[in-house]
């Protein structure tokens, strides 16, 4: 269990993170979202004990994160980097051993990963000789080779083609199944939505929403109706709080309060014309994100 307890950090006059709290459960993926400059990287650095919070603390398994535990964590930073002139195999051995594996264990694990990632032919090459995608795979292996109990992935899928995205996703799911706690930071909403059970969105150094993604969606005050756009949509006015937000391609976009009787809405619609499409959806993560994160320059 990773607990982030009310941490704050400022650099000079810039407040990077303010009173941030959340918890990530073992064997699950926690999504950390927010615009660039919101404080995600600073938060990650405090979780990994690279930076010390000004206030508050980060706990792993009930203990404050410190030198005794930090080196067992895995970290795939957004800014990727390998030693360009060091052979792949040596490099992974180095990282694995740096994270506390024995030489034998490290060799064994690297071999397993190389099979899974189809990298065997590149063992003796240097990163400079590899394609970007293969470099990314090596970087990913470097972050997970020691089977960290906590794995921090910052934009893990950037730079991968769709096939490799699936390979990495499979590997991530495997790690979760083994009980790894994963903190995933990404701008790719659909991937976060697909993988994460819990999320926290931060904006301008503060947490704006945090918790179980399903629960957040369920508790959302509105639902979203997509239905055939009829010539006469005036019936909507009979339902309090229902707003048509626009239409495109013959589909009307309608926002309705969560308590609205959708069946009654559908019946009313059918009276006004042929309806061959009608669906009620919970908000997407994008909807939630856009609701909470104010555009740059808007008042906080």
């Amino acid at each position: 269990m990773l607990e982030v307890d009310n941490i704050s950090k400022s650099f000079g006059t810039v407040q990077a993170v303010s009173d941030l709290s959340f918890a990530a459960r073992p064997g699950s993926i926690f999504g950390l979202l927010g615009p660039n400059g919101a404080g995600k990287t600073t938060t990650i650095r405090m979780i990994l004990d690279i930076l010390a919070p000004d206030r508050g603390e980060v706990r792993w398994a009930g203990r404050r994160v410190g030198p005794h535990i930090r080196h067992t964590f895995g970290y795939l930073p957004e800014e990727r980097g390998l030693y360009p002139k060091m052979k792949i195999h040596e490099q992974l051995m180095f990282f694995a051993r740096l994270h506390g594996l024995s030489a034998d264990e490290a060799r064994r694990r690297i071999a397993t990963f190389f099979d899974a990632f189809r990298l065997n032919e590149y063992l003796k090459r240097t990163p400079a000789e590899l394609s970007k995608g293969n470099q990314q795979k090596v970087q990913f292996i470097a972050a997970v080779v020691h089977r960290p109990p906590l794995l921090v992935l910052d934009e893990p899928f950037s730079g991968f083609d769709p096939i490799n995205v699936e390979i990495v996703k499979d590997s991530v799911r495997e790690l979760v199944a083994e009980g790894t706690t994963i903190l995933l930071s990404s701008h790719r909403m659909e991937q976060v939505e697909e993988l994460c059970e819990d999320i926290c969105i931060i904006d301008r150094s503060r947490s704006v929403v945090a918790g179980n993604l399903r629960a957040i969606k369920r508790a959302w005050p509105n639902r979203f109706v997509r239905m055939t756009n009829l010539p006469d949509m005036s019936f909507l006015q009979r339902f309090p709080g229902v707003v048509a937000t626009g239409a495109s391609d013959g589909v009307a976009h309608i926002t309705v309060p969560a308590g609205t009787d959708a069946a009654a809405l559908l019946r009313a619609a059918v009276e006004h014309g042929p309806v061959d499409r009608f669906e009620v959806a919970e908000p997407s993560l994008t909807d939630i994100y856009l609701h909470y994160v104010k555009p740059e320059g808007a008042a906080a």
Partner: protein
Amino acid sequence: MTTLALLVSRDYLTRVRSRGFIIGTILGVLGILALSFIPVLGRLLGNLFSTSIALVGPDPATTAIVQRALTGDYRVAVQKERSLGPTLPADLKKKLLAGTYDAALVAYRTPGGQLGFAYYPVKSAGVEEQEVLRRRLLQAAIEADFQAREAVQVAQALHFPFTTTNLNGRYRNAAEVGFAQGLVYFLLILLYISVIMYGVYVSQGVIEEKSNRVMEVMIAAVRPNQLLAGKIIGIGALAFTQMLIFAAVAGAMLVVAGRHVAGPMLLPAGSPAQAAQGNVLSMLATVPLSTIVYLVIFFVLGFFSYAAMFAGVGALASKAEDVQQANGLLIWPLIIAYVVALFAIQTPDKPLMVVFSLVPLFSPMVMFTRVAISVVPLWQVGLSIALSLAAIWLFTLLAAKLYRVGVLMYGKPLSPKEVLRALRAPA
């Protein structure tokens, strides 16, 4: 294996196998081989200064002849005293040790009436230097004795008595002095090159990890302090490896030179210099173990005091270009130390040299030269080492602070304000 050992071995192993290191070492070895065949270093050094000589003669006429023979190569100061034998007058010795003159030359008449000379250099006299002096004195001896004696005796005059007594009493004969100076000169070059080269390696190593973003992964796993220590020790070990290789080659060359090169060199038969070259092996045996031990000590001190600064500079920059100017600044104290040390070979015990040999950043080179050439009071050596260690501790502390802030900054170099704030932060 501990984290630090892992870091050190990575920094060491990746570099020791790199093409740059191998080529650099080979070039260095070739350079040493080339240098071994150009035995002009001693002569170059001897000509750096003209020595001031206090001259004591048996009578005004002879003194004038000797003075004439020496003028040009030496600054001669004729003394009022008259010599009665080869001994050095006590009050002149005091003046010498006070630094008034570099040396004293006592010209005297032997009981047989022959002109003889006793040379008393304050600093130890080099082989070449004594050879030059001997030739000048030969002239004087012939001129002085020609007026009074038969031609038969001129031949005898060619074998005029000439002794050298080093006042600091460290060396048994002039050959040893020359050998020690040559060796120190060579070791200074080695010290200078390796500190500069490996210091720059350190700052480049830091920059490299920052510019290719490995740093971010590294600091998640290890402390900046460990990273700093790993870098400095790893590259220090690399430097040490190269020095060992160079030293082995140089040692082998000295031995080879002693056997085969000495003969054809243009030195008068029977001269101390010739004797020296004829038997380099036995000369090597006269190099005290302490010189080698001091070389190691001062190399380590020199490397670490500069390496910590180079690492701090590396942490502040984010691109290789940023670091070059700052490196240029750091090299200055080293250049000064090197030049001062060259002077110290000739005048190891002048007060200015004593000061330089105590000041950190200069002391590794200057104190090494002094202990290798002269007899240095132990308290000075101890103080010098202690001050150096204190400076290393301070520099490493400051570098670690810069490192902690600097390693996470990419893209832009730290502003002076940020640097100050980092340095003031608690350790």
